[in-house]
């Protein structure tokens, strides 16, 4: 299958790649670029651990072809702590003990970021709804919702 050369903007950095068109963004991030903060699990767009931001919008990287990300801007969890300083959402997750096994957390935080960027003063219900596409099998939803709400309050 013909490979395609591709330039991807990830966390503000431009990457030149040669990929097969069937490769998902998730595979390219984890395998080609070593950005393993984006997790892999169901591959069915059900669980949300592969959530990344595409032009600021939360999407599942497991059902997104890398070739379709040409000329778009991607943010992964690695891109959130600019200059080594934790993003307020990351700080809030730590402060609230919202991280258990941790596997769902990169996706949770990115989905929460996308949501808070458009609604900075959400209700708890709205936060829970915004995170409905992210499953936590430790079932730590309460503390996760509290962390997101607290990050929202702190940003106001």
């Amino acid at each position: 299958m013909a490979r395609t050369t591709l330039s991807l903007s990830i966390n503000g950095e431009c990457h030149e790649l040669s990929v097969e068109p069937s490769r998902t963004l998730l595979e390219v991030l984890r395998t080609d670029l070593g950005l393993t903060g984006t997790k892999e699990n169901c591959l069915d767009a059900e669980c949300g651990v592969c959530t990344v931001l595409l032009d600021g919008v939360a999407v599942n990287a497991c059902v997104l072809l890398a070739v379709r990300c040409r000329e778009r801007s991607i943010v992964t969890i690695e891109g959130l702590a600019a200059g080594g300083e934790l993003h307020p959402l990351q700080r809030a997750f730590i402060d609230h003990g919202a991280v258990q096994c941790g596997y769902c957390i990169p996706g949770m935080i990115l989905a929460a970021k996308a949501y808070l960027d458009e609604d900075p003063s959400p209700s708890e219900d709205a936060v829970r709804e915004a995170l409905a596409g992210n499953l936590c099998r430790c079932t730590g939803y309460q503390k996760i919702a509290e962390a997101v709400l607290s990050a929202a309050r702190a940003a106001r």
Partner: protein
Amino acid sequence: MRRVSFDYHEPTSVREAVELGARFGRDGRFLAGGTDLLVQIRRGQLGPRHLLSLHRVPGLDAIEIDGTIRLGALVTHRQLERTLGFRGALEALIEGAQVVGGHQIRNVATVGGNVVNASPAADVVPVLLALDAAVTLQSSEGERSLPLDAFASAPGVTACRPGELLTHASFPRLPAQSATAFLKAGRRRAMEISLVCVAVRVTLDASRERCLEARIALGAVAPTTLRAHAAERSLQGRPLSDEVLAEAGRAAAAESQPISDVRASAPYRALLVATLVPRALARCRERIQEAA
């Protein structure tokens, strides 16, 4: 993704898309949001040799609401949810769109994909059925339009011919004294395939006493989404008392052909239809009164 391979194309116009569609025929497949298609490809349920991505075709993501309402094939569920013009009489479009998947899915999954995928449990399709929607199909030979009601014939099976592109769905503006409602039953509130979903549309006469016209569409109770025609007829010309609505619910349950599966039993699904149909109709009745 499993060892799958395909050639990938990015047409930049409908014309180029349908020319590629004609060239590849059964070996080609149009790619809209991809949230269903890429999963089906990975699972080996579909093996197209050519994927024709539509995201560079201009205009397919447009919603037009002047006169006839037109939803481009690439309109996302998120766009539907946020279209202020649907508030009011077309509320069911918002209600149907906002229960699909989570935000990540709704940001990407499209109306066209939902229709072409022809899942019997599609949520937005019953809403479009209740609105008497038609779909427009474009091929290198020309354009044709079909009632949505005649589009799907079995799970995943549609009237779409190889190489034919669904460009948009459209439906007429609703008459005065009309309302719509959508209800879904699932085991949880999000990321859930419907056990049953129900979309209804009611138009009352000028005095808001009798039903001029009703549409009742059901999801997840037959091999395709479907209209409950007998239930619709049972409402025509009658005042919408609770008893009349309950009767329509029973008629709709009798028209549904649910199966038992891991999600619910057939009798339970029939019961849900008999319950949700009157509830959705009552909501329309309230909405028309409130708007008056």
